[in-house]
């Protein structure tokens, strides 16, 4: 008995039912020219032809070869009447998760870089980068970097102390008087600064030389930096693909949102979410967090053969996790890339296979089981030369074929074949009637592993102008082209399953600026993909602003900035078993906020009635042609009346309450105003710290560097007591003035006053004027702190070596001083002179610095606070003074009252605050 005959006998088996193969090729394509050439070819008629008809004409069916009059095209119901219209519950997305604790600052804006004033040229509305301003800022903020080396160079030619009458020193200029002129005020920034003739002369003589050096050395670096910043501002390609993903769970109504948070985007969150068909989705518990070593740029997820995988791309690392059915992520493998990865994608065919591409132009197939296999490498771009090192790789309908994309084209590459061969899928050129300067920003494979897909061979390609759909079986000829007109780079796209069987596939397109578009693609097998309805725009995060209560200007600005943050990720989920087709759209902003929006297909009753209305009208109105105009007008008014209530959705109370709750949490986060410190010359204040504190500081520094964020006070341990400057006082977190104003506004002024009287009596005893004077004077005298040449290990408890030096100036002992070791013998005198010129701490304070400071070191922490200078009410400055900090400064100040190093100079504030607040004393 043969094997095959057995099969035929089995009648009970399901035989013959041939599922409609998904690989049918449409047998009648839309006519179009195919003219190879460079992009922006002037005489390419393609611009006017079928695929380019971005608008309504896409809806036209290609003319059939049978006569349409014989078989008149049935007046097919439009998409809207057939399927309805996607509607949102609210006019804008709603906050889904509480705002994170990290404060978000809006990123660089063009305003920060470009010259803003009015140029004198009459016709030149020119965008110029304000280099002067930037350079100016740089010199202010990083004067030590800018002028330090120059100072070293000029060291030999200037004498800072008393003039020496030796022959050798004839060429050495005495700068004593110059320094005297300079001391006491900062000429720069002070419009009333007095410029002595000496200073003028010096600046005239030396200005050109000095300026040129700084300009020459810094200009290049600054230009380079500005250029990259500007480019990044215009096109930030790092987040291509999006960093928000939905991992479906074991049950259809649960799943997880995966997204990065943290200021450095290095915390990967797995947030369990429960979906409901009618109510809003619910976050279950706190998210599981995984701390990564770099910023998360892209999160991809796929479920292949029941295995949910999650891939994450960071700048120099890629990682894969397997998500169990219970939702626990289990790390599989990490890949390091030296040049930086630009794209990662998961295979929809084989579980655990990934494609990774790097800036060096290499594309690798990566699977945790089989390791890495480089399949393509070319540092040059595909079609023509382009400077961008962005690369992208994705899968195709064939599991062994990959697409390799860069800015100029997309190529199909066989994994098994030799590298570099394969045909083009897409080329920026005249074939697709591309414009001049058009570049690919996103190339995504639209096929999925699910059986319901539009067509397993379709690829989406987005440029800054248009969206293309290409079938890999007919390369180079776009099946569809639509001009998206997004005012930000479209870096996110997602094809969703149809809301109900037979309906078109929604395709979401998200721009970095938060603009969202939804396209409705119909087609499937044996039809070319077409737009079933005109594309729709969806509300962006900034559309939610009216849903929030009105705040005072500062808060409003904060909220506005937050809502305008770039869109970093997009995930759409179709909740199961809903009576009407719905969709949940999650959005992740660069501020780390996750918003959601509930969309549902509203059956369109309006247009049906309108259609019937129109039919009846057209029947009656056909007779009087001149009446067309009036008819138009009447219809205009009538529809104007009906349109708003049908189209507009308003903010319902629940939504407003949701927004309000979120806002409350957002505003609770204390605004991290950097504590103000007076300018200081000290670059090495950290060295004065105690060993254990130093270790802590180092850890903090390390952590901050790892995360790539700004060093913050909390990294460095408790803040030393510092007095905010007088000018800043009213803006402190505990704002007396506001408080008082508020109290008076509410008519409780008297109560406030009484309470104030009671509470502040004791600390207010000392007049603050004295204190302020100390601060101001100290801010200029703090130069002493710089001279810590000593090895940091030696004397932590000692006061600045300089203090001792000044005490023992001119003595032989000096040469044994640790600080002097690094100074050449001949320069020591100059330095000594220089230091002598400086106002020195009173000798009586430092008469026995060692002993004093030893004793202070043994002082317990609980030493009465009255020893130190009175402090303001700033709670942040109330941190207990540490003994080692008090040793020289606080006690000194107490004694002298004039010359002191206020304790705030000692710790590491220079590093703990934004660099902008760095020394302001120029040369």
């Amino acid at each position, binding site marked *: 008995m043969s094997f095959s005959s057995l099969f035929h006998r089995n009648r009970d088996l399901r035989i013959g039912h041939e599922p409609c193969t998904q690989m049918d090729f449409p047998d009648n394509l839309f006519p179009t020219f195919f003219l190879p050439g460079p992009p922006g070819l002037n*005489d390419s008629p393609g611009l006017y032809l079928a695929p380019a008809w971005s608008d309504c004409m896409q809806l036209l069916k290609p003319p059939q070869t049978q006569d349409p009059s014989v078989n008149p095209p049935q007046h097919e119901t439009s998409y809207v009447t057939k399927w309805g219209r996607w509607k949102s519950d609210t006019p804008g997305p709603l906050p889904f998760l509480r705002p994170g604790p990290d404060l978000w600052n809006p990123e660089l804006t063009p305003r920060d870089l470009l010259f803003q004033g009015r140029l004198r040229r009459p016709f030149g509305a020119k965008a110029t*980068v304000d280099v*002067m301003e930037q350079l100016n800022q740089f010199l202010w903020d990083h004067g030590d970097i800018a002028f330090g080396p120059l100072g070293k160079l000029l060291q030999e030619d200037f004498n800072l102390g008393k003039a020496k009458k030796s022959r050798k020193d004839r060429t050495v200029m005495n700068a004593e008087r110059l320094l005297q002129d300079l001391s006491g005020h900062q000429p720069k920034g002070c419009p009333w600064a007095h410029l002595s003739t000496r200073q003028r002369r010096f600046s005239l003589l030396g200005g050109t030389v000095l300026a040129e050096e700084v300009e020459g050395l810094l200009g290049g670096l600054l230009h380079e930096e500005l*250029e990259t910043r500007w480019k990044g501002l215009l096109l930030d390609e790092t987040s291509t693909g999006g960093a928000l993903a939905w991992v479906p769970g074991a049950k259809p109504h649960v799943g997880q949102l995966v997204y990065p948070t943290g200021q450095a985007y290095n915390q990967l969150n797995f947030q369990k979410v429960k979906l409901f068909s009618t109510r809003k989705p619910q976050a279950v518990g706190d998210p599981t967090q995984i701390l990564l070593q770099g910023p998360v740029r892209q999160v991809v997820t796929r479920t292949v053969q029941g295995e949910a995988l999650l891939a994450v791309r960071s700048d120099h690392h890629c990682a894969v996790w397997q998500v169990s059915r219970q939702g626990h992520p289990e790390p599989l493998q990490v890949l390091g890339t030296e040049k930086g990865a630009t794209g990662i994608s998961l295979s929809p065919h084989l579980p655990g296979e990934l494609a990774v591409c790097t800036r060096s132009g290499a594309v690798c197939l990566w699977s945790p089981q089989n390791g890495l296999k480089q399949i393509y490498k070319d540092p040059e771009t595909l079609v023509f030369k*382009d400077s961008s090192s962005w690369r992208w790789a994705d899968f195709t309908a064939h599991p062994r074929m990959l697409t390799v994309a860069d800015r100029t084209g997309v190529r199909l590459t066989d994994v098994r074949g030799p590298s570099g061969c394969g045909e083009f899928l897409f080329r920026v050129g005249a074939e697709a009637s591309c414009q001049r300067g058009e570049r690919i920003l996103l190339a995504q494979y639209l096929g999925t592993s699910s059986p319901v897909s539009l067509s397993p061979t379709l690829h989406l390609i987005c440029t800054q102008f248009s969206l293309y759909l290409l079938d890999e079986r007919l390369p180079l000829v776009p099946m569809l082209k639509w001009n998206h007109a997004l005012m930000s780079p479209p870096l996110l796209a997602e094809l969703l399953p149809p809301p109900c069987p037979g309906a078109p596939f929604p395709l979401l397109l998200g721009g970095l600026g938060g603009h969202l578009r939804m396209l409705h693609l119909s087609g499937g097998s044996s039809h070319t993909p077409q737009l079933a309805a005109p594309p729709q725009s969806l509300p962006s995060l900034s559309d939610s602003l009216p849903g929030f209560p009105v705040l005072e200007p500062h808060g409003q600005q904060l909220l506005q900035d937050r809502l305008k943050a770039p869109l970093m990720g997009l995930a759409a989920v179709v909740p199961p078993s809903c009576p009407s087709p719905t969709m949940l759209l999650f959005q992740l902003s660069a501020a780390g906020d996750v918003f959601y929006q509930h969309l549902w297909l509203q059956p369109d009753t309006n247009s049906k009635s309108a259609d019937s209305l129109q039919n009846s009208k057209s029947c009656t109105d056909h007779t009087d042609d001149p009446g067309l105009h009036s008819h138009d007008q009447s219809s205009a008014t009538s529809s104007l009346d009906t349109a708003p209530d049908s*189209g507009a959705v308003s903010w319902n109370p629940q939504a407003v309450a949701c927004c309000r709750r979120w806002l409350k949490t957002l505003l609770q986060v204390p605004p991290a105003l950097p504590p103000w410190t007076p300018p200081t010359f000290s670059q090495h204040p950290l060295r004065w710290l105690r060993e254990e504190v130093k270790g802590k500081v180092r850890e903090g520094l390390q952590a901050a560097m790892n995360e790539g964020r700004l060093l913050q006070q909390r990294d460095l341990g408790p803040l030393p007591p510092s007095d905010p400057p007088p000018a800043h006082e009213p803006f402190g977190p505990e704002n007396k003035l506001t408080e008082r104003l508020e109290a008076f506004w509410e008519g409780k002024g008297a109560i406030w006053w009484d309470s104030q009287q009671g509470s502040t009596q004791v600390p207010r005893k000392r007049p603050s004027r004295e204190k302020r004077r100390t601060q101001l004077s100290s801010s200029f005298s703090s130069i002493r702190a710089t001279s810590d040449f000593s090895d940091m290990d030696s004397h932590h408890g000692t006061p600045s070596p300089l203090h001792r030096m000044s005490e023992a100036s001119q003595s032989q002992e000096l040469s044994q001083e640790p600080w002097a070791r690094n100074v050449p013998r001949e320069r020591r005198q100059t330095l000594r002179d220089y230091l002598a010129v400086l106002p020195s701490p009173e000798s009586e304070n430092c008469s026995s610095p060692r002993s004093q400071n030893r004793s202070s070191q043994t002082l317990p922490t609980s030493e009465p606070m009255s020893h130190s200078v009175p402090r303001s009410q700033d709670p942040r400055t109330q941190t207990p003074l540490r003994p080692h900090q008090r040793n020289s400064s606080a006690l000194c100040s107490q004694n002298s009252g004039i010359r002191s190093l206020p304790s705030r100079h000692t710790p590491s504030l220079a590093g703990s605050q934004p660099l902008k607040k760095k020394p302001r004393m120029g040369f």
Partner: protein
Amino acid sequence: MMPSQPPWKQGLRRTDPDSGSADLQLRALPTVSLSSTRTCESGACPVLLENMDTFSDELTSPGEEDDQVEASVGAGPEIHLPWRLQHIQSIVNHGHNGTNFTRTTSICLNFIQEAVLKHQWQQASEFLQSYFQALEDVNSQKRQVAPENIWKLGSAILYHHPKSNIETFSAFADRMKNIGVQNYLKISLQHALYLLHKGMVEDAYRNLNQAESWRYGEMSASQEKLIKLIQAYRGLLDYYTWSKKRTELARFDMDTFASNAATQDMHSYFRQASLNLHEIIEIPGVWDPFVKSYVEMLKYYGDQDGARQVLTDYAYDNNFPSNPNAHIYLYKFLKKEKAPGDKLISVLKTLHQIVPSHKIMLEFHTLLRKSKKEKHRKLGLEVLFAVLDFSGCTENTTAWRYLAKYLKRMMMEKHLDWIQDGWSSRKDWWPTFHFSYYLAKKNWKENKMLALKKAFTSGILLGKGCKYFMYVSKQGHKVKEKSIKTMKKFVKKHNILDSEEL
């Protein structure tokens, strides 16, 4: 030009003491202006100019140009980002530069686009009425772009507006054709297609006819191509009429005189249609409907050679895109012609190289299977393997049945090396792609026939230890599936793993 000096230095040199700002432009910026100036010189694509308008009068200073030229030599133009202008304008202009007119116009355009994207057709149409002022823009480039914008948006609005009708659309199109002569042909063609879509063939034909006879000055290359396309569409409509006449002629038994006249009439339509269609087919492109109708007419008049030539050219001309349909048409034509098998095979072989996943490949396989040449029979196996490589064909029961059957035959015929050849490039991924445990469960649940065929194949290719084979045979055993026993027996005897060892 100071080549030794870095570019930023030149920038800093240009410091303008009066304005107090260094006039250094980032390299990314001036290239915008360069590309714009270049486009202006070369006659300009209007869409680009629209965006570039503000930059059009901005010429770069010589120092920068060196840079740019350097940067753009041998390379394409720099990337052009439409939002860059927006970024800059918000800073630079502050409303100083634009007049109220240009500002209101651009705001209006934004409103229209927004309304269109929100499907607020009524609102969009009202905004559009205000946008007509753009036609009077003093800036000539903007004035040129305006009609195009109006047509694009207006036609979209009228296409979707619930209260619009064909008359309104036609009136609008007729108006727009004559505003800005550049767009006449384009609008005519789109108008005709719209009418065609609405089933108004005669009106469409009239429109195309009018457009074809339109002359205005010297025609640009793109307009010439557009005329060709318009003629082709007219030819297509002629073909419709021709085919209608043909069916009429066949249906009614007319007397000789009447039939003669009708035939003459039909011939004249054929001549018109063939002339136009023939012309467009020569130009590289995708011309499926045109080729099909042209070939059909040629065939009717007995010009088999001509038809074959047209199809062959369409399929094999290297200037044309590799359109799978072209090969399909040729194959179907040859098949109808009863061409020899080798000829058919050679056509499908080309198609196999372009689109190995095409559904006609199964037909190709049967052709190859029947062929007497060993080479073809070997190819037959490869074709099946290639079809099943694609993710869209994984559940194609026919293909799996063919493969199971063919593999069995190969085993019997001792063509083990053929199987090895096909299998060697697939053995590292087919097991996970096709024969995983997950898929075994899924296939068995959804389609038992498919599961059985796949199990048999997996048994031959991977031996009886394969998960898929084991699962299906176990399940089959449970439901007392009789074929399982035979299958197991066969696999035990013949599988390439064991044969390898031997």
